[in-house]
């Protein structure tokens, strides 16, 4: 448990490894969050939204004030084949860490926890008939909900992709 806490603190000061990549919004020098300006990947007008992760294996990617939420590859593998996605109604208000739904897989019914505080603006309707999309494409087509970001500072409490990768390595040991 202590190791996990240490990792989380460490996560905040990890420098991005690939300069061209959309890195975490953390200054490598101070370890403190930079002012919110996502580095774009070059071509296209679309801003790359850095994906952030929770310790419950959800991810959120914010673009134009709307966060898209899903579960990580680690989570979908751990869950096994997903047979049902129970998602909230549009308009549901969520506080950070509130339970917003559940995924049922061959393994168990697993609760989903909101990464941030906000309101649900959209749910992925294709999952009703195709819950397996979450396994096949957890970062793209298998997204779960979209929500507003009421407290952008909460994003800083989440893990960057690198920090998350280190986190899951530590739990696997």
């Amino acid at each position, binding site marked *: 448990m202590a190791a996990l806490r240490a990792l989380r603190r460490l996560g905040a000061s990890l420098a991005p490894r690939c300069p061209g990549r959309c890195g975490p919004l953390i200054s490598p020098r101070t370890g403190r969050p930079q002012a919110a300006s996502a580095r774009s990947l070059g071509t296209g007008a679309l801003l790359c939204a850095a994906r952030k992760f929770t310790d419950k294996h959800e991810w959120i990617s914010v673009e134009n004030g709307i966060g898209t939420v899903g579960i990580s590859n680690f989570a979908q593998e751990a869950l096994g084949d997903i047979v049902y996605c129970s998602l909230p109604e549009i308009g549901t208000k969520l506080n950070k860490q509130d339970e917003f739904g559940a995924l*049922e897989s061959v393994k*168990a*019914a697993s*609760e989903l926890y909101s990464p941030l505080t906000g309101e649900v603006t959209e749910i992925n309707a294709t999952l009703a008939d195709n819950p397996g999309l979450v396994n096949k494409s957890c970062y793209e087509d298998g997204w779960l909900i979209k929500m507003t970001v009421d407290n952008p500072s909460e994003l800083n409490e989440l893990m960057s992709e690198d920090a998350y990768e280190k986190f899951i390595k530590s739990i696997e040991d």
Partner: protein
Amino acid sequence: MVILSSLKNCFQLFYVLKISAAGFKYTANRGLILQSVSSDVYQNLAMEDWIHDNMNLENRQVLFLWRNSPTVVIGRHQNPWQECNLKIMRKKNIKLSRRRSGGGTVYHDLGNINFTFFTSKKKYERMENLKLVVRALKGLQPQLDVCATDRYDLLLDGNFKISGTAAKLGRTVAYHHCTLLCSADKINLSSVLKSPYKVIKSNATPSMPALVKNLFEEDPTLTCEMVMDAVAAEYARCHQIDHHITLINPADETVFPGINNKTKELQTWEWIYGKTPKFSISTCFNMVYEQSLLEVKVDIHVKHGRIEVCNIVLPEQWLPPAMCNELEKNLIGSKFCPSETTALASTLLRICPQNYELHSKWSLLCENVMTLM
């Protein structure tokens, strides 16, 4: 050796459950065996929720033993209309409940034992739990041919299901629970677990029907009490704790603060029926009215247990179209429930022309629509 603590020990238990510091036996740190004194399914499910939400299971595991009076338990994302015969259940006073874990529909009565294995998420291991149960059973009766399948069922004689499994993964805690048929009423079981519907379209999780058997049929000396004790003993051995079963009362708010609210929630219509994934029933049925056979087409869509779309197509002019439209309009938004529909139909009947023929046609139609619920 089993030492069943009385309810007086519940006060001690409160501290055991809540405080992780010194002041209680070392062995309670590593494991606890609890047995419910209640046979009320809602209270027992609430007890599971309470343990899941309140106990610190980082370094401790808990086994919870419970039995229920006759009830059908559906999985979190299932459709009760699809899974069981609600009409027979209402007639026989068999309760319906929805649990928070996934999986399929089961029938419980006092001849069925439920085991819930609580662990941290890390230590969640269903197969190990099932192997424990198998060892306990074989310890009682070495000739017993019982084994676990890769679907986490327990089979007797390779063919008959005696146990089904379901599980829930929460924030930091996980639980795996399973049933065990010792001496359950198989006639009740098969009559209530058969839905009269073939025409429901839904993406709710379906059950996998199976042939079942009771342990008692294999060996009449295997009673519920013996089996519960044997599993508790094996659990105690594996976790190196005292073979000590603590009796708990899931209605005791002083030991389990907040539990009565959980029990209430599990009994609400909104939880039991309202949590059903949306579904539709599109069917034709025949009605007999004064020696003529009439075909009625019904298309009903239900979301959160309430009617969202309702189309009833009758033979032309059999009933004034305005009456039929009134019925459809009023059903929308109401619960997909026979008692609510009866009330609605009676109200509507009062405001329509007092004509014997109309009234009897109306009653016939409403009765038939209600059989779908």
